[in-house]
C-alpha cells in the first residue's frame, strides 16, 4: 500500500513539473521582448541577467516589479554582450567568448571559454553553432576583423569551424539558415553549411545592430533606423518598409 501511495505521489509530482515547464516556455515567448546582439541585459525565466565590464549580475524577478539582486559572478575583463539561448548564457568580451549554464539559475556555471584576438565581439547562437563577429576596426584591439563560427554541439567544448575576414563587423542576427552581419554594409550569409558560409545578399546600409522578428528586419545605425520585410523562401526579395533618419 505504501508503495502504491509513493508511486502515485511521484506521478503527481511529475505531472506538476511537466505542466509548469511548458507554461513557463509559453510565458517566456509571449511576455518578453527582444533586444539586439549588443544587449547586456537578458531574462531567463524568473531571472534577469546583466553584464558590466567584469561581472555578471543575477536578479530574481519572480515578483517582476521587485527585482532582488541575488548574485554577482566575476567573468573576465572588457565584457561587452550577453545573449541567451535555451538555458545557456553566451557572453562576449574583447578577449573571448564565454558560455555559462543556468542549471542553478542563481549561480551560473562556466562551461567553456574561447580566447580570440582582442576585438569588440558580440556573440549569438542557435542549437548547434555560435556566431561571433570580431571588430578590430574601431580601436577595439587588433587590426583584423572577422566572422567566426563555432560548433557548440558539445557546448562545453566549442570548436572553431570557420573564420572569414570582414571589414568592421558589429551586431548580427539569425534568420533561419541566414545570418545577417552589420559590416561596412549589412551582409547576408547562407549558413546552411556553417563551415562554408556563403555571401548571398547585402543591404547597402550602415548599421551597428539588428533585430529580426519573424519576417521583420530592423536595422539601427548611426544615421537612422531602417525596417525591411524579409522572405525566407527568397532571400533576394527584401522590401524596404520605412526609414527614420536622424
Amino acid at each position, binding site marked *: 500500500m505504501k508503495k502504491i501511495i509513493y508511486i502515485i505521489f511521484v506521478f503527481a509530482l511529475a505531472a506538476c513539473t511537466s505542466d509548469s515547464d511548458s507554461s513557463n516556455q509559453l510565458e517566456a515567448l509571449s*511576455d*518578453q*521582448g*527582444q*533586444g*539586439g546582439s*549588443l*544587449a*547586456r*541585459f*537578458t*531574462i531567463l525565466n524568473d531571472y*534577469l541577467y*546583466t553584464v*558590466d*565590464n567584469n561581472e555578471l*549580475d543575477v*536578479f530574481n*524577478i519572480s515578483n*517582476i*516589479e*521587485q*527585482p532582488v*539582486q541575488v548574485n554577482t559572478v566575476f567573468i573576465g575583463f572588457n565584457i561587452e554582450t550577453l545573449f541567451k539561448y535555451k538555458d545557456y548564457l553566451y557572453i562576449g568580451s574583447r578577449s573571448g567568448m564565454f558560455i555559462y549554464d543556468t542549471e542553478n539559475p542563481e549561480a551560473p556555471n562556466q562551461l567553456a571559454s574561447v580566447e580570440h584576438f582582442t576585438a569588440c565581439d558580440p556573440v549569438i547562437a542557435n542549437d548547434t553553432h555560435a556566431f561571433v563577429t570580431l571588430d578590430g576596426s574601431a580601436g577595439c584591439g587588433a587590426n583584423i576583423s572577422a566572422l567566426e563560427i563555432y560548433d557548440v554541439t558539445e557546448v562545453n567544448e566549442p570548436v572553431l569551424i570557420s573564420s572569414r575576414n570582414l571589414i568592421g563587423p558589429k551586431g548580427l542576427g539569425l534568420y533561419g539558415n541566414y545570418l545577417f552581419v552589420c559590416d561596412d554594409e549589412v551582409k547576408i550569409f547562407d549558413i546552411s553549411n556553417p563551415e562554408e558560409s556563403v555571401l548571398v545578399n547585402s543591404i547597402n546600409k550602415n548599421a551597428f*545592430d539588428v*533585430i529580426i*522578428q519573424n519576417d*521583420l528586419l*530592423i536595422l*539601427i*545605425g*548611426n*544615421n*537612422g*533606423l531602417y*525596417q525591411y*520585410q524579409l522572405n525566407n523562401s527568397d532571400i533576394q526579395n527584401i522590401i524596404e*518598409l*520605412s526609414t*527614420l533618419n*536622424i
Partner: protein
Amino acid sequence: MKKKTHLIVLFVFTILFTSCIWDATDDTDDIIDPPFQSAYEAISLTREAFETSTEVIGTKTLLETGKIYVKDQYLLINEPNKGFHIYDNSNPANPVNIKFLKVLGSTDITIKENVLYINNAVDLIALTYNSDFSDVQITKRIRDVFPVMLSPDRFYPNIGNDEVVVDWTLTN
C-alpha cells in the same frame, strides 16, 4: 605550463619594449606626455536629484542612436545616457513616435510583461508602464550595482560622495 610560457614571453617582450622607449627618449626630446586629465568633463547630479530625474516627456528629437528593443507593438531606441525614444511600430512601414522616457545614464533595457528593467547610471531600476506610456512608475531601485561611468578616454570622475555621474561632455 602553457600559461607560464605565455607569461615569460610577455615579460621578455615588456623588457624589450621598455628598452625601446628609453632609446627614443635619448634621441628626441619632443615626446608628448600622455594626458593626465580627461578631455571630458563629468556631468553629475546629487543622489536626490538623480533619483527624481526619470520621467516621461512628450517626444524629443533623436540626436544619437543606441541599442534597440522590441516588445509587442513597441519599438524602443536608446539615446545613450539620455533615455528611450518609444515608437508605436504596429505598422513597421510607419513607426509613430509616441513618447520619450528620460532615464539618465541608460544604455540597456529588457522587458517582461509590463515591467521595464533599465540601467539608470549605477542603479538598476524596474518600472511599470501602461499602454500608451503616459504613466511610468519606478517600482524598485537597486543602488550602485553597476560601475561608475568612466569618461570616453577612460578617466574616473572627480565627484563628491553624494553625486552620480550620468554623462560626460567634451571640455574646450
